C-alpha cells in the first residue's frame, strides 16, 4: 500500500516534473532576491516573453501535428517590416490587415507544401527561413524601417499601452492562449490535430483529412507570427530586418520545454505557456541573483535536456537508454 502511494507520488512528480522544477526555481529565486516576486518584475517578465510566447502558441499546433516550423523567426521579421512600411503608406488601419494577409499567405504556402505535397517540414521551413529573409531584405531594400511620426500615431497601442493596468502584449498573449486552448482541447479540429500527429496513417484510414489539418496548423502558426510581428513593431515603432532572427529555435525550445514531443501527438497550449514562462523567469532570476546574462543559455541547455530526459525516463521506466 505504502509502496503504491510512493509510486503514484513519484509518478505525479515525474509527470508534472517541469512544473515541480519551475516551482523550485521560483522559490529559490524568491528567497535569493525579494525583487523577483515583485509584481512589477513579474509583469515585466511576462510582458517581455509575450512576443516569444505568442509565436510559441502557433508552433505548438504545428509540433503536435508532427511537423516543425523553423521559419517563424524570419517570418516575424517580415511581418514587422511590412507593417511598419505600410503604416506610413496607407495608414495603420489598413496596414495591419494587409500585413496579416501577407503573413497568412506565407503560412498558406508552407501549409500547402507540407500538408498537400507532403514534403518534409524541417527542410521546407528551413528553405522558407532563407527565402522569407530574402523577401524581407528585398522589400526593405536592406534598410531599417521606421515610422516617421512616432508621436502622432496610435499604432504604439499594441506594444506600449496598458488596459486596466495590464500591458497590452500580456492581454494579447493571454487572450490568444485562451482561444487556442479552446480550439485545441474542445473542438473537432483540435482532436484531428492530435490524431494526425499521433499516428498519421491511422488518422488517414479513419477519414481524417491529414493534409487540410496540417495546412490549418501552419495557418494558425502564421497568424500567431503576424500577431507577434504586430506587437514587436508597435513596441519599437521601428525595426531592423533581422529582428526575429534566431527566435525560431528559442520558440522551439519553449515548446519542447512545455512537454510537446517532436514526434507529434502530444503537448498542450497551456504547457507551452508554462515553457515560455520558465524560460522568461529563469532568465530574469539568474540576472537578479547577479549571474552573467549569457549564463542563462547554459542553464536553458541543461533544463531542456533534463526536462525531456525525465519525460522519456518515466515513459520507459528506466533512467538510462537501453541502447547498447
Amino acid at each position, binding site marked *: 500500500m505504502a509502496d503504491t502511494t510512493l509510486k503514484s507520488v513519484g509518478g505525479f512528480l515525474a509527470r508534472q516534473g517541469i512544473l515541480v522544477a519551475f516551482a523550485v526555481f521560483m522559490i529559490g529565486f524568491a528567497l535569493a532576491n525579494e525583487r523577483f516576486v515583485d509584481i512589477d518584475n513579474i509583469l515585466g517578465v511576462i510582458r517581455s516573453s509575450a512576443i516569444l510566447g505568442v509565436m510559441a502558441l502557433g508552433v505548438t499546433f504545428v509540433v503536435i501535428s508532427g511537423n516543425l516550423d523553423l521559419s517563424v523567426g524570419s517570418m516575424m521579421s517580415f511581418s514587422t517590416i511590412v507593417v511598419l512600411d505600410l503604416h506610413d503608406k496607407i495608414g495603420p488601419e489598413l496596414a495591419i490587415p494587409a500585413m496579416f494577409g501577407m503573413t497568412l499567405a506565407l503560412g498558406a504556402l508552407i501549409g500547402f507544401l507540407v500538408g498537400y505535397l507532403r514534403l518534409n517540414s524541417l527542410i521546407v521551413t528551413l528553405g522558407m527561413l532563407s527565402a522569407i529573409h530574402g523577401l524581407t531584405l528585398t522589400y526593405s531594400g536592406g534598410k531599417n524601417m521606421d515610422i516617421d511620426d512616432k508621436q502622432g500615431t496610435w499604432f504604439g497601442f499594441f506594444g506600449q499601452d496598458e488596459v486596466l493596468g495590464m500591458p497590452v502584449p500580456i492581454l494579447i498573449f493571454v487572450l490568444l492562449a485562451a482561444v487556442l486552448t479552446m480550439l485545441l482541447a474542445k473542438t473537432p479540429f483540435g482532436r484531428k490535430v492530435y490524431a494526425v500527429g499521433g499516428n498519421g496513417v491511422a488518422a488517414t484510414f479513419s477519414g481524417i483529412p491529414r493534409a487540410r489539418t496540417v495546412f490549418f496548423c501552419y495557418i494558425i502558426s502564421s497568424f500567431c507570427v503576424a500577431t507577434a510581428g504586430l506587437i514587436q513593431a508597435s513596441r519599437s515603432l521601428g525595426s531592423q530586418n533581422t529582428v526575429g532572427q534566431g527566435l525560431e529555435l528559442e520558440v522551439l525550445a519553449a515548446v519542447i520545454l512545455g512537454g510537446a514531443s517532436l514526434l507529434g501527438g502530444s503537448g498542450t497550449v497551456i504547457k507551452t505557456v508554462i515553457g515560455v514562462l520558465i524560460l522568461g523567469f529563469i532568465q530574469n532570476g539568474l540576472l537578479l541573483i547577479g549571474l552573467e546574462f549569457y549564463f542563462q543559455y547554459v542553464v*536553458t541547455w541543461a533544463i531542456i535536456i533534463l526536462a525531456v530526459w525525465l519525460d522519456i525516463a518515466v515513459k520507459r521506466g528506466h533512467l538510462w537508454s537501453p541502447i547498447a
Partner: protein
Amino acid sequence: MQKSVLKNHAKEGAIWGFIVLELIFFGIAGEYMSMTETAFLAPDNMILLLKQSAPLGIIALGMTIVMINGNIDLSVGATFALCAIVMLDSMTWPILAPLGNWAIPFAWGLALMTGMLMGLINGLIVWKTGVDAFIVTLGAMLGFRGLVFMYNGEQPTFHLNWTMVDIAESAPLGIPLPILVFAVCIAVVWWIMNRTVHGRNAYAIGDNREAAVNAGIKVGPHMVWNYVLIGFLAALSSITFYSESGSVNPNDGMLYELWIITAVVLGGTKLTGGRGSIIATVGGILAIQLMRKGLGFIGADTAMVNLVIGSILIAVLYLDRQLNRKGEEELKI
C-alpha cells in the same frame, strides 16, 4: 539490384549536373551582367570559390556522417566559434605565450580537443539519455553559444600571430592550404564511410536501428564516435578559417548549421538516415557556394541569394519526392 545501383548513380550525378548548369549560366550571364572585367570562370575566381567553400565544407562532411547515422547536429556553428576562441585565446595564456611560435601547434591541439569534447558531450547525451538528437543539439546550440559569450562578453577575441597567418595563407603547389585541408578531409571521411567497419555500421544504424541492434552492432559507441568526428571537423574548420583572420566575434558561425544541412540535403542525404554520400555533399556545398558567388557576380544582392537558395532547397525536395514516387518509401501513407 542492377537497376537500383544505376538509379543511385543517376541521383548522385544530379547535383553535379546542377553544378555544370550553374557554371554555364553564370559563365554566360557573367559576360553581360558583371561589373568587373574578369570572367566568372577565371581560374583565380574558381580557386577563391573553393577556398571559401572549405570552412562550411569541412563541417558538412561531419554533418553527412551524423545524418547518415540517423542523427543531426545543430550545435556545429557554436562549436565552430568556441574552438576559434580557445585557439586564439590560448596563445596568450601564461603557459603558451613564452613559447612564441611553438604555441601554434598547442593552440591548434587545444581547439581540436575542445571540438571533440563538445562532440563527445552531445554524443554521450544522445546515447545515454535516449533524448532525440534534434533536441539534444538544439539545447547544445544555446548552451555552447552561451559559453562563447561568457568567455569574452560581446567583445571580439583576437590574437595576431604572423607566423600562423603565413601558414594559413600559404599555398603549397599553388593550391591554398584550406583547399588542401578540405581535400584531405574528403578523402579520409570517404575512406571511413566506405572502407571501414565503422562506416558500414553507421549506414546500417541509420537505415534501421532495430535491425542493427539485433545484428549485434553496438549502436551507442558508433553514434558517439560520429559526434566526436563532427566536433573534430568543426574545430578543424575553425582552425583553417581563424588562423588566417586572427579575430572571432561571439556571433560567428550562427546559422552555419542551417547552411550546412541545406548543402547536405541538396547532396541527397536522407534526413531519416541510412542513405547519403560524402562526395555528393561536396557537390551540395559547391552548388550553394557557386550560387552565392555567382549571383553576387552578376550583381544580385544577399536578398536574392537567400530567396533563390531557399526556393531551390524546396524544389529539390519536391523533385526528389516525385522521382522516388514509385520507390519503397511511398508505401507509407
